């Protein structure tokens, strides 16, 4: 437990990090640093399916390949998705805040 917490705090310690969510393979958010439950749910609902799509794509192109990391850059945020094993780690960062 403490391992997880320490990792989360470490990730959150980076500049511009808005939130961190851990989602299991069924789309259930296990741990979130967002205060709003709705926001967590939305991310947990939407992003893993996108990651799955991306993984499908990568594996379609080369069946021996696999998705390592997915970064989604939007106007406001960058959503970093690390999907491995049975979990998905979402980190939402504001790159503008990060780079200044």
């Amino acid at each position, binding site marked *: *437990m403490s*391992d*997880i917490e320490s*990792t*989360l705090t*470490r*990730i959150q310690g*980076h*500049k*511009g*990090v808005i939130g961190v969510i*851990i989602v*299991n393979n*069924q*789309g*259930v*958010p*296990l*741990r979130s640093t967002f205060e709003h439950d709705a926001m967590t*749910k939305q991310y947990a*609902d939407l992003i893993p399916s996108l990651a799955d799509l991306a993984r499908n794509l990568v594996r379609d192109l080369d069946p021996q390949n696999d998705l*390592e*990391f997915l*970064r989604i*850059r939007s106007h406001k945020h*960058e959503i*970093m998705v*690390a999907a*491995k*094993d*049975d*979990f998905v*780690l979402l*980190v939402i*960062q504001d*790159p503008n805040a*990060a*780079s200044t």
Partner: protein
Amino acid sequence: MGEAAEESGAPPVEDGDVPAAPATASPDEPAAAGVDDAGEPAQEPGASSESAAPADGGAPVEGSAEGGGEATSGPVDGEGGDAAGAPDGAPPPDGEAAPAAAEGEGEGGDAGAGAAEAAGDAEGPPGEEAAEGEGGEAAGDEGGEGGEGAAEGEGAAEEEAPPPPPPPPPVELEPLPEDYVPVRDRPPIPEPFLRNEEGKPVPLPGVESLFLTGTTVDLVGLQGLGPGNITRELTREVLLGDIQFRGAISDFHAYKAKIQAADYEPLIIRFNEDDVYGDGNNYEIALTAEAANVWKAIAEETESRKRLLELEAAHVAAEKAKPRSKRVRKVKPWVSMGSEVDIEEASVRPRREPIRLVVQRKRREFHQPGAKLADKDAHELWNSSQMECRPFKDPNFDMRRMEQDVAVQAVAPLRDAACQSTGAIPPRPAVTQTEALDLGPEAKAELLSKPVAERGSVAGFLERVRDLAEVAMVQNEITNIFRDDLAALNDEADGGGGGSRKETLVSEAQSFTHLTFSKNKVVSAIQWLPHRKGVVAVACTEAQSHAERVARMGRTSPAHILLWNFRDPIHPELVLQSPWEVFAFQFNPLHPDLLTGGCYNGQVVMWDLSSEADRLGRRAAAAAGGGKAGGVTEAGGAVSTSGAAADRLGGSVSAKGPDLTPPSTAMGTTLGAGGLGATEAASSSSADGDAHIPVVKHRFLTDTQFSHHQVVTDLQWLPGVEISHRGKVTKLGEGSKECNFFATIAADGKVLFWDVRVEKLLKKGKKADELLDVVWKPIHSVHLISLIGMDLGGTRLAFDFKRLDQGMFYAGSFDGELVYADFIKPEGEENPDYAKSCLQAHVGPVIALERSPFFDDIVLTCGDWQWQIWQEGQATPLFASGYAQDYYTAACWSPTRPAVLYLADQSGSVEVWDLLDRSHEPSIRVTLAATPIMSLAFNPMPASASAAQQAAQQLLAVGDATGVLRIMELPRNLRRPVHNEKKLMGAWLERQQARLADVAARQPARGAARKEAEERKKEAEAMALAEAAAREAAAKDAAAAAAAGIPPPQADRREKKGAPPPPEFDEKAEQEYLKLEARFKAQLGLLPPEANGSAH
């Protein structure tokens, strides 16, 4: 076999018949098999059970007759047969065989289409048979065989049957009876033997097969038996005689008893040529009447059929001899050969009930006149109006189909389903609704608390992916990957001074001057029209000194503000006339048709261009038309009734009534000097081309009594606020479009605030033309005091437009002071001190005071030879430039680059200072004119900063002291900010702040040090003086002593060195020198302690 037979002949119907089969079979096995073959077919019909008669020539004949049943080949045979009649006639059989062979051969030679196969088969064998026949074998069997062989050729031979054409049969042929059955249709002739279970022939009961030697044959007289003649009757006596004669060796001996017992007379012996029974015997004898009858019947039948065949053949031949038309054709019954299937397939059969269509017409419509029906040619119809079904182009055949790019994205299929359920039947709506899956807190906690090593542990997962995420985050922190490096490169190139000349050079785009209005006048203020592109307003004032002005004081000197449009560099678009020279003016930023100006005498004028806007638009259109001059102009006249230009422009002179008031007299008194937005012909213009320039007179003029008393030097509109009479400021709502107030500052130390809504001052019930009586007074007044306690000679105003409601503003003065003041009147004070601070910034008048467009608290001031940057609330400038060579006349910030400012000086140059580049000298210095530049103004920028940066050009309007307005186009590097310029400028300002703070922090220490140094200096001076005095005294003593003869040692030395000067002079000089030396030493601190001591 059967097949071959079928195809071989025309009559396929009879294919199953016996004769046909042997017909083909016999050729296969020429001689010996003949009987076999004949036997085989007999089995099939099973018709030969009781044929006993062994010998008969009928069989062959029959075979042939059968074969030729339909053929016409028959006649010869038949005749042959007829002629032969008797069984033993060798020639007839021979003849018969020959034709048969001939037939076969003929057939072989030129077989008909259908007979080809059979013919081929038959070819050889008949020949053999014929040979056999010729061989004189009298065996009837053989003859039958041959006949059979011939029979096979029958069908095919029908056409060319009569190679030896017989003479046509006698005409008197009896017609065949109606119920005549053709021979070939009759049942086959039974065989003359029986067959056992295995199908082998066995003699009939009562028949004995026996072997007769040639001797026996000769003895009993059986010679000549053979094919076609195979039976012979012998009496019992002959046989018994032979037995008796020859005894035991007689061939008949074994059957003596049977012969004796035979129940008929004479006995029949049949030639068994082929050894049908396979027992090696060549004859057989019927010993009972029954068997003999069978044989006889067979023989008779054979004979009769032979005859019938001949008859038939005769009929056929007769028929054939008839002309074709007379022939009787036999209708053959139809036989299925499989064609019905084809027919079935080819036939069309309706699949549904036919449609029933009833066409009806009303009775009364029959025979109506007028309905003329006529035939027309197709080509006429095709295009005529009667053609109801016109040809048209079907776009389907015209349309070109291009290849289509279609992309499909696989997504989980969405399905909309609805169900309506009742009661407790399972899918209840409440059950079918779902919500997001979630785990209970315990489950989550359990998952989260799984140890790292365990499978499916969140901690383990995090450990694996943490680095990935962190790398990404750090990357974001370090670099902005979406930065456009190429764009930045471009910026750097600009900053580096590269690029073409055009990109780095300040170039003059256009210049304007007008002979009457601006030539040799000073461009004292420039304003870009905020709502129109490419239009600049310029206020021109006489280039007069203050003294000259004083001399002319009291006399009105109409001055003008010119509106220059880039489209016309010769003629101003509009001229605004003012009773006094205007030194400051500004357009209302939110209602650009309103503009106010401050005059030399302290009054404020207002123009309203709203009535001109349409006119200007039309004029722009008309200008293209050409007609410039025209109308009446009164040369030099001050008065004009309705201006020619106004006339030509199709306008009423004024919407507010006739304008007959001479402007020059009406002006200067009170407000609304009659102009009221009217346009006058600029009759004073000397050039004809100027005739059309519309002149707009002011609409309102402030009351002199309540106005400034000295020249108005600056004027600023205050958008978004409401100022009350009590000096209270209320901020209007965000995005308010109201801008009704402006502030003016003048040299009399007052800042006045005006409400532009003059009409509001009118009392109710008064009419518009009574505006004349309205006194336009300032709504609020702020009095500022200078450092020396006099009225502040204000020159410039700078408000913070973002925080207008806080009331703080800067003002500059003629004496170089910078006043930081609050224009909000505090409660309860009658004459409050509005100024918060008053600092001596410059030596000369402050000629520019402008807030940075990027930093709210940064203010640029410029006066004399220096410019300074101030930060709000600081008592010392953040930065002060070095002193320039020429007197500055104008300054402003760049509207797009935070670190750039522009300064104009007396020598006609414009300096561009890029503080990020260097701050000790201007980055660029451009000399524009030989005359002093008097004013600078940038064209208005789009509201948003980014849009401003992207704007295609940035123009700087520069006005000089000779009335020329120059529009300078600024290069790209001055227009576009370098990357992060605002941030860099912020850092620069911070550095300056730090420097100031540092200086301030050192101030006490340095002051103390200075003080100490000064004290020490004073001390030393005092000491030196004392010493000098002491020396003087000593010198005097010495002199006295010298006079007394004892020189002091020092003096001695000096005297030794130098030549003795004249005593008086020497002494004086010496003392001076010593004094200086002492002071110097004291200053340097080199004074020896003993000296100090001695001084005391």
